[in-house]
């Protein structure tokens, strides 16, 4: 690595280049100040025509390389993302918690529940909630809920009410109770219990008519039970839960990955057998965080559910999942980000798996699926690119950390670095570093939302490098929250 002295020397040399043209054209003549803008300096006129022609050629070649039919230029999107602005959120009326439930209503960000501190015997799951209104930058408290506090509950916003179900209590037990919250009335209602406890790794989508929950799988000593891999649906009109046919394929350990295309539900599954890392059992969650060589899963499958017929179909992905995957739907396409090739995964609690990102392990395999043509296409680039990561840092791809705006898929936890995938150009951009005063550590278990203008993140727990410098540790410090707004 180059020395501080070398950086300083280059900085001085770079600064001297500010004066090159100045020396040719001179500062404003006689030291007189020019007050009008825009203005042209005399030096500009003296630039040889050949240079102008060369500039035009360079710009034309550059434009030819960056133009993408049907989309904006990658340069403009990349610039917008890199010039985005981070801001701290004002203090919430509730303590920052991890693995809370959250929903964006169109005007407010609702947050409820969560776990206080790293998962373990001293954890608490208080019944507290708050609503953040970005238009006024203000928080308000929610009334007490009619169900017990919990973390990792599934929730959806229906357009008029917020449905919360399942999750895990402070004793680790998987819960089936459910409730809904109507922000216009500031009132909670109790809902019927779920037929199958979804466990802490479940995920849910709102179809416009039903909430569909696909339960996860949480084996191992000390891990909350619950989650059989089943699918279940709740219809607010009938106030009834229904067990759906079991998805094809087999369970993948860890967080369930769902994508909703507007008409079909996609679930990532394993082609054969429950995938479980043997070494996981030797790493009790919330304590020692060991390297978890989890993978590969060759030819993973995607189970496709059609709610109009209550039937499942199966797609095979032409890749090998080596890391923790992400699934998202865009513009009628399905996007699979298969994680860093060969990267080690770190199990830190019952729900989250982290990708460590030492230098050789930054590349990902990403594919998109077009239902119209039935074709998979590899995507260029990688989630974690270049030199933004330090050895030992961890990046969280679980739960709510991947947020879609409809055109851009963000990976951000509120601190450290983030990435964004622009579906219009199929390109990745590493976001600039976050708040100046925030530590660079990653945050796990935060909730993230897209408001239409801003990316919001709140809660979760910071990660610190371990003394060995290899694996991060959860220090339990809560994260107060931040927002990121890409350039307009």
């Amino acid at each position, binding site marked *: 690595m180059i020395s501080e002295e070398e950086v300083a020397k*280059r*900085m001085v040399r*770079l600064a001297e280049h*500010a004066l090159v043209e100045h020396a040719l054209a001179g500062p404003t003549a006689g*030291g007189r*100040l020019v007050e009008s803008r825009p203005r042209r300096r005399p030096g500009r006129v003296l630039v040889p025509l050949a240079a102008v022609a060369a500039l035009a050629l360079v*710009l034309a070649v550059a434009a030819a390389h960056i133009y993408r039919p049907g989309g904006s230029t990658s340069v403009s999107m990349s610039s917008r993302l890199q010039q985005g602005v981070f801001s701290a959120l004002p203090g919430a009326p509730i303590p920052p918690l991890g693995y809370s439930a959250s929903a964006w209503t169109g005007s407010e960000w609702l947050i409820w529940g969560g776990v206080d501190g790293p998962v373990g015997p001293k954890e608490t799951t208080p019944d507290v909630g708050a609503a953040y209104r970005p238009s006024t930058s203000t928080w308000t408290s929610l009334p007490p809920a009619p169900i017990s506090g919990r973390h990792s509950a599934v929730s959806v916003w229906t357009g008029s009410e917020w449905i919360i179900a399942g999750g895990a209590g402070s004793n680790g037990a998987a819960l089936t109770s459910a409730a809904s919250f109507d922000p216009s009335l500031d009132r909670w209602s109790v809902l019927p219990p779920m037929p199958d406890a979804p466990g802490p790794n479940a995920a849910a989508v709102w179809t416009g008519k039903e909430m569909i929950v696909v339960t996860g799988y949480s084996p191992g000593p000390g891990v909350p039970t619950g989650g059989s891999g089943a699918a279940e649906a709740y219809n607010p009109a009938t106030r009834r839960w229904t067990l759906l046919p079991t998805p094809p394929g087999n369970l993948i350990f860890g967080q369930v990955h769902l994508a909703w295309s507007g008409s079909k539900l996609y679930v990532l599954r394993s082609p054969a057998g429950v995938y479980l890392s043997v070494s996981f059992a030797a790493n009790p969650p919330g304590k020692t965080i060991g390297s978890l060589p989890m993978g590969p899963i060759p030819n993973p499958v995607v189970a496709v559910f059609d709610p109009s017929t209550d039937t499942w179909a199966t797609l095979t992905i032409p890749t090998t999942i080596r890391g923790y995957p992400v699934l998202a739907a865009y513009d009628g396409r399905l996007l699979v980000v298969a994680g860093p090739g060969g990267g080690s995964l770190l199990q830190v609690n019952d729900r989250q798996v982290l990708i460590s990102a030492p230098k050789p392990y930054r590349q990902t395999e990403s594919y998109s699926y077009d239902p119209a043509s039935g074709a998979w296409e590899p995507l260029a680039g990688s989630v974690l690119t270049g*030199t933004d990561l330090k050895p030992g840092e961890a990046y969280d791809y679980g739960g709510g950390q991947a947020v879609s705006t409809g055109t851009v898929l963000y990976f951000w936890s509120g601190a450290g670095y983030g990435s964004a995938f622009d579906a219009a150009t199929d390109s990745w951009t590493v976001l600039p570093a976050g708040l*100046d005063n925030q530590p660079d550590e990653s945050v796990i278990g935060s909730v993230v939302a897209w408001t239409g203008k801003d990316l919001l993140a709140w809660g979760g727990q910071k990660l610190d490098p371990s003394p060995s410098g290899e694996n991060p540790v959860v220090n339990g410090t809560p994260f107060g929250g931040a927002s990121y707004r890409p350039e307009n």
Partner: protein
Amino acid sequence: MRDLATQDAVLYRAYYSELLKTAFCLTGSRETAEDMVQDVFVRCSGRLEGMEDPAFYLRRAVVNATRSLFRRRLVAQRWATTVSAWDEMPDELVELRDVLMRLPVRQRSVVVLRYVVGLDDDEIAATLECSRSTVRSSARRGLGRLRKELTP
């Protein structure tokens, strides 16, 4: 009547180069830097007479102008259309400028004020209106990223 033109011209001659270098390293664009420094002098015209350290206020004005500029998101467009056009810098300096532009404004300001202007941490803290510890942490992060990204 004070001879403002004369007073300002003295300051202009004394500090123009330093401010231009600072602004160039903060914005990555020579043209933007020249506009910025010009505007700073115009805005400060007549206000610096008798000040013990006019350079302090001029530097602060440049840093604040950089913040405003990046808030208005104008740099990307100017940068894209001007820097490549007129600069003939060695590759390693182009790389340095690119990495600098990816740093948050505060980290960038700290490393520029430290290594280009030569200010100590207390002076940087006063210029940026932040604490000394913030300067140190920003310098550590900014320098760390520069060293890392500039290493082949």
